[in-house]
């Protein structure tokens, strides 16, 4: 009997249509837990670095994690992994919603696609019945509408469907995979899915998921539940509203957008509008918001409600979460929330990433204004801001005209367009669009997080450590007094001594060594979440979360029957992280790639930045180039990785 995991994967060969149910090695759970961990292992074993994103050999893996389908609140992520057409590295966007639990109940941990289908298909997984079905009639249909169409056609209202829209079909590099109220959007998973001609994956399961020591698991969950209730009733003082609670940002609930609209940069991540949020704006936006969001909704088994059912007059209904109501309007310099709701509907049906896409469109507008793109490129484009953005979105999603170039994302488009366009690609890291934030003083922690994480997306790395120092010592003392989540007491002192100004402030404090330790802690927790497929909003992505390094081992032990302590758990995710890093090194990642955008902060400190990176690498057990050393790999039982890196010349003998 297998516990927490089902012990079976589905292997789909799209070229032949062959479908296999494959039992997995129980040892893999001990080595990598599940979710992202075991997926990375599979990519390492089976997809050599010569593989290009649109090669048939590029695996596309939909993975559940260890906790999906168990009673652990908020465990509902699906990790989708593949070599990204945009970055050329191993991407792993995650989606919430309902899909992964359903797959577990159907009896599988992962669905692994290889090769390409000759015609459009969708996969239907219903317990032991698994079939590739014709999807030619769905070609061109939206990513949201396709989900209901498939449910109706199958006569299975409880089926959960992950689908691509026209953007994925056209292999747009920022194409997303949409599912209920969530999307796996970063890195172009939709494009890889489209390249393989998979329109959707539909799942329904009615089997058991087993817990090794269920009663004990529930005892631990009782404590977690109490803490969730406590945190929901007691928002943290001293931090802004959006950071004071648990769960992903409650963007569908809150109507106050002062912080986002004034602190984040508008246009192509350019301008901060520090007095945007006037009384009139507030009134108008609140009215639109409340009239449009029909209901707050959650993901599977989550007590929070970060999502909303959006019903805006004149456009079909859809679901929304997070910051997407603002990304398009801010990028377009439109002061009207109505536009946000209207364009997002179209964007979700196309199936595009709502962080990257608006920036690409804003980048195109800048190029046009600078004369680098011309009237010919914009032929037929309306001249008003809203119309222009809609027009550009259509072009990008369908790869028409100039949209065909833009569809590859800012980095690649800039290089294709040339003629100085490269200058306007100012907000990417590793070819991937970043959050639209521009700040003053270098922040050592954020420097490291932006530069080094494999996710290449800051929101998936930060979380447990406050974003800024608290002004008063009393507030800091109050904060650390009740902080059971920290992995080590020393962090309390770091926080107590951290001040907004003076000697103990950014950029020199936290020191490079402290910064490395803090970042490592936050990454560690993200990596656990991603292996369990638990929402980061309830663990790694928020302050004082319900799940942390001290209760995770107990929950995992009770669920799986493994006896795991904190050290053991840390070692497992460290192993997976190093494997992931080694994989990306093999794909060509270098130290030179590890840097935040030039203009992210106005005040930069090149020497300090070098020191930060070097200190962090050292702390991680990596060499100067960011390659895991032979010793570190050996400690983590990854000798086979060291051998491979040596063979390929990434590690030189005797020169770690």
């Amino acid at each position, binding site marked *: 009997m297998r516990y927490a995991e089902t012990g079976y994967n589905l292997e789909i060969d799209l070229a032949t249509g062959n479908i296999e149910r494959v039992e997995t090695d129980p040892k893999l759970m001990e080595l990598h837990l599940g979710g992202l961990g075991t997926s990375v292992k599979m990519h390492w074993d089976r997809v050599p670095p010569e593989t290009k994103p649109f090669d048939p050999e590029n695996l596309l893996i939909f993975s559940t994690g260890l906790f999906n389908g168990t*009673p652990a609140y908020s465990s509902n992520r699906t990790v989708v992994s593949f070599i990204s057409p945009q970055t050329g590295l191993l991407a792993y966007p995650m989606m919430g919603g309902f899909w992964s639990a359903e797959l577990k109940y159907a009896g599988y941990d992962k669905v692994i696609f290889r090769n390409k289908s000759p015609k459009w298909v969708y996969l239907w997984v219903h317990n032991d019945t698994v079939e590739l079905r014709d999807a030619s009639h769905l070609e061109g249909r939206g990513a*949201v509408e396709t989900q209901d169409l498939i449910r109706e056609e199958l006569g299975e209202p409880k089926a959960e469907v992950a689908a691509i829209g026209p953007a994925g079909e056209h292999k747009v590099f920022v194409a997303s995979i949409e599912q209920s*109220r969530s999307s796996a959007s970063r890195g172009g998973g939709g494009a890889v899915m489209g390249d393989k001609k998979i329109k959707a994956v539909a799942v329904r399961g009615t*089997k058991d998921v087993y817990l090794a020591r269920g*009663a004990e698991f529930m005892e631990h969950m009782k404590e977690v539940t109490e803490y969730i209730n406590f945190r929901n009733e007691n928002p943290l003082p001293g931090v802004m509203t959006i950071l004071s609670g648990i769960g992903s940002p409650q963007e569908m609930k809150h109507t106050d957008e002062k912080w986002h609209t004034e602190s984040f940069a508008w246009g192509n991540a350019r301008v901060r509008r520090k007095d945007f949020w006037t009384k009139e704006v507030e009134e108008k936006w609140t009215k639109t918001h409340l009239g449009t969001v029909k209901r707050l*909704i959650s993901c599977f*088994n989550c*007590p929070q*409600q970060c999502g909303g059912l959006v019903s805006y007059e004149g456009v079909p209904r859809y*679901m929304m979460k997070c910051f997407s109501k603002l990304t398009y309007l801010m990028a377009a310099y439109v002061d009207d929330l109505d536009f946000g709701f209207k364009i997002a509907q179209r964007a979700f049906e196309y199936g595009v990433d709502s962080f990257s896409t608006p920036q690409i469109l804003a980048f195109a507008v800048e190029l046009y204004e600078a004369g680098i793109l011309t009237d010919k490129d914009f032929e037929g484009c309306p001249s008003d801001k809203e119309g222009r953005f809609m027009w550009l979105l259509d072009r990008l999603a369908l790869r028409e005209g100039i949209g065909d170039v833009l569809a590859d994302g800012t980095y690649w488009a800039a290089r294709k367009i040339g003629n100085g366009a490269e200058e306007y690609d100012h907000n990417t890291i590793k070819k991937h669009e970043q959050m639209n934030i521009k700040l003053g003083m270098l922040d050592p922690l954020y420097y490291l997080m932006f530069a080094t994480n494999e996710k290449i997306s800051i929101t998936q790395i930060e979380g447990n450590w406050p974003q800024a120092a608290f002004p008063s010592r009393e507030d800091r003392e109050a904060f650390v007094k009740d902080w059971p989540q920290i992995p080590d007491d020393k962090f309390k002192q770091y926080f107590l001594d951290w001040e907004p100004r003076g000697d103990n402030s950014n950029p020199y404090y936290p020191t490079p060594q402290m910064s490395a330790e803090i970042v490592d802690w936050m990454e560690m927790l993200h990596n656990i979440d991603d292996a369990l497929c638990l929402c980061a909003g309830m663990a790694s992505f928020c302050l004082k979360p319900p799940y942390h390094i001290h209760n995770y081992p107990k929950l995992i032990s009770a669920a799986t029957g493994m006896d795991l302590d904190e050290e053991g758990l840390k070692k497992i995710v460290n192993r997976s992280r190093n494997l992931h890093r080694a994989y990306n090194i093999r794909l060509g990642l270098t130290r030179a790639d590890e840097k935040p955008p030039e203009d992210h902060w106005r005040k930069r400190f090149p020497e300090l930045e070098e020191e930060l990176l070097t200190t962090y690498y050292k702390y991680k057990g990596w060499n100067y180039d960011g390659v895991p050393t032979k010793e570190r790999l050996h400690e983590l039982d990854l000798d086979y990785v060291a051998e491979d890196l040596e063979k390929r010349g990434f590690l030189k003998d005797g020169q770690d």
Partner: protein
Amino acid sequence: MAKIKKTIKTIRVDADKCNGCRGCEIICSAYHAEPKYSSINPAKSRIQVLTHRLQNIWLPVFAGEYTPAECMGRDKYVIDGKEYEECAFCRAACPSRDLFKDPDSGLPLKCDMCEGNESGPLCVEWCLNDVLTYEEREEEVEEEVEMEEMEIGLGSLIDKYGLDKIASTVARMSQKD
């Protein structure tokens, strides 16, 4: 006729607050697993959340009585412009649908208010959105109404076969055991 007191157990459903998380299904199936909490399977839950997300339908329904035959006609409700699927509000485990049947054995499932659990109905406890509220009230009822389900069935058998025949059959069957 004598009046007696009876405890009526009710779970009030405030469907407007439901965020569709299906947590209630999880905990119900976990509690009723053998041994308790050893497995989870929402399809075995005695509460099912009927959902049509874009139509804004989230409706938790509790499993009621088993019925051997489906209704002659079906009902379909439209409330507030939302069209609920056929039989949406019906609690019966009925041959016309898979709802409220064990997916393996096909046997009917019925909400037992988590009998034996000290803290009461678990779906109520597990739903952190206050959709489900447990209420108990005392009601005075006519004593004869108190007749157990089995008595009702036996009564009808006696009506049909006569008391003697039933008694001798019961005696014979109990000896076999």
